């Protein structure tokens, strides 16, 4: 009984994905399911549409910039939180994780107002700044898990053997943090690539990232181009998540192991 219910629910959860992938191969512009044939024309459209090309480039720049900043900042913060006294640390932690709870429209409008006041909206700097703020909590959390599993005696041992604090970090701490760092990188990239609401408020036609470009397209056109782009997104994400589960034990991040 339980098994049946779960299967139905899983079908519900995956149905849209199946439909999107199927529709993306439809040869005509009229959406139909099952598709009347197989065609790659919408994929071609995706790759050649100038606005998508521009948006993909923007996504690349903004995500690369945001992740390049958020990773070291977040790692330092995770280490700092672990070293501090528990009560102070948990206060700072709440503060660092706060962007997660703010509604997207609130953050978006706020950044828009500030960006306009500073005259920065023509550049991608406001986008990158916003993405860093939105991605940082994920980095801090992921690296924090690894930091918590770190045996503090190991750093003392390295110091007793003559390693300066920087050498301790490079030879002992950093290698041992690798799983957390990889997970953080994964989360950071995915969250930034898919960030939509805040980016909607602070993008211009020239700086908009891919999700925003997709939104504009969907509102204006009804052909399956977005289905093709969505399929590309879905395939890419599935592969990444599957790899992550294989090598990073995602279950351990979310569930309590017995």
């Amino acid at each position: 009984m339980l098994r049946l219910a779960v299967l139905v629910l899983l079908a519900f959860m995956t149905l849209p994905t199946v439909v999107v992938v199927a529709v993306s191969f439809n040869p005509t512009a009229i959406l139909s399911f099952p598709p009347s044939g197989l065609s790659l024309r919408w994929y071609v459209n995706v790759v050649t549409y100038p606005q998508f090309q521009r948006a993909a480039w923007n996504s690349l720049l903004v995500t690369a910039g945001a992740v390049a900043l958020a990773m070291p900042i977040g790692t330092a913060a995770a280490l700092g939180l672990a070293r501090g006294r528990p009560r102070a640390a948990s206060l700072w932690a709440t503060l660092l994780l706060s962007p997660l709870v703010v509604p997207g429209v609130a953050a978006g409008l706020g950044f828009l107002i500030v960006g306009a006041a500073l005259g920065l909206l023509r550049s991608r700097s406001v986008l990158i700044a916003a993405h860093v703020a939105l991605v940082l909590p994920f980095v801090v959390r992921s690296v924090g898990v690894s930091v918590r599993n770190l045996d503090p005696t190991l750093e003392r041992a390295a110091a007793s053997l003559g390693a300066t604090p920087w050498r301790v970090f490079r030879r002992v701490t950093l290698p041992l943090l690798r799983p957390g760092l990889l997970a953080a990188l994964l989360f950071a990239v995915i969250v930034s690539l898919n960030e939509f609401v805040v980016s909607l408020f602070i993008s211009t036609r020239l700086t908009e990232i891919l999700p925003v470009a997709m939104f504009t397209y969907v509102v204006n056109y009804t052909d399956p181009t977005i289905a093709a782009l969505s399929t590309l997104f879905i395939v890419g994400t599935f592969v990444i998540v599957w790899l992550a589960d294989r090598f990073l034990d995602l279950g351990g991040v979310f569930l309590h192991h017995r």
Partner: protein
Amino acid sequence: MARAVVELAGCTRDYGGIRAVAGLDLVVYEGELLSLLGPSGCGKTTTLNLIAGFVLPTAGRVRIDGQDVTDRPAHQRGLGVVFQSYALFPHLSVWENVAFGLRERRTPRAEIERRVRAALALVRLDTRAEHRPAQLSGGMQQRVALARALVYEPRVLLLDEPLAALDKKLREEMRSELREIQRSVGITTIFVTHDQAEALGLSDRIAVMHGGRIEQLGAPREIYERPASRFVAEFIGASTVLRGRATGPDRVALADNVALRVLGLAGLRAGEAIELAIRPERIRLTGGAGENVMDGRVVGVVYQGVQTELTVELEGGQRLLVFVAEPAPAALAPGQTVRLHLPADAFMRLGPASEEAGR
């Protein structure tokens, strides 16, 4: 005259409201193995951490080879530390673990090869060089930790309860191996432990610690046979504490008619209250009469193979712990009456009752 290698002068260390170490003075001489012995919370690990530079003293100075290193961070003190949990780097092989300190000293490759191989041979782990720590047993990990700390010939070796995680048999094996290595290398060593048998067996000198202070510092035999305080007498080895009143320069009266002759205790004043301790293995079962002979009733019998541990109650109600070497001269059972002889020179004085109250 032996050279002082490590000196602690008036070291105090506070953690918030707790004083872990109070005004500690300690000198450790060249080539000796000194144990810091005491129960948990006595400050022995804090003392080790002060010497290693992992914590800074709230007051006092730390000197190594005459130089004041109090303000020098841990990685500049040139010491070797073996931690209770071994702290082997899980992401490095045995070889890389042992080579770690040499790499930090920019030792040339060929030299590292030579010395790591020698260190691994010293601890008999040459065949495990490529293994990861997780693949080794506890005893092997401990030896890797030792090799890692010794390979760069540090000035002092610090060991923080290194044998605590091993089972009994392995612990005893490692104990003698450790001593052998220390002697052959000749390195000044400070050994922290809560196990008094370990300290007695390994050390050149023992510092018995209690409440952040050193209660007694001396050779093992001295600590065992002439404990300076009640704490030391009770912490080291077993003993019975007897309360009585001195009745002359060499006489003590216990409660209810039991009179004792005591030798080797200076300055007994008639009338003063006194506490005496006596080791259970010094008390003998006897048949005859004489001085320091008394009867008692057996109230507890614990067979231990090598000896049987008797608890005997005297007329006045005081209880004595007696070790009888096996095979015992007579059958022993609760309720029996036994006659005991307490040799006059076996008593240790714990100080008059008022001294205890002031502690």
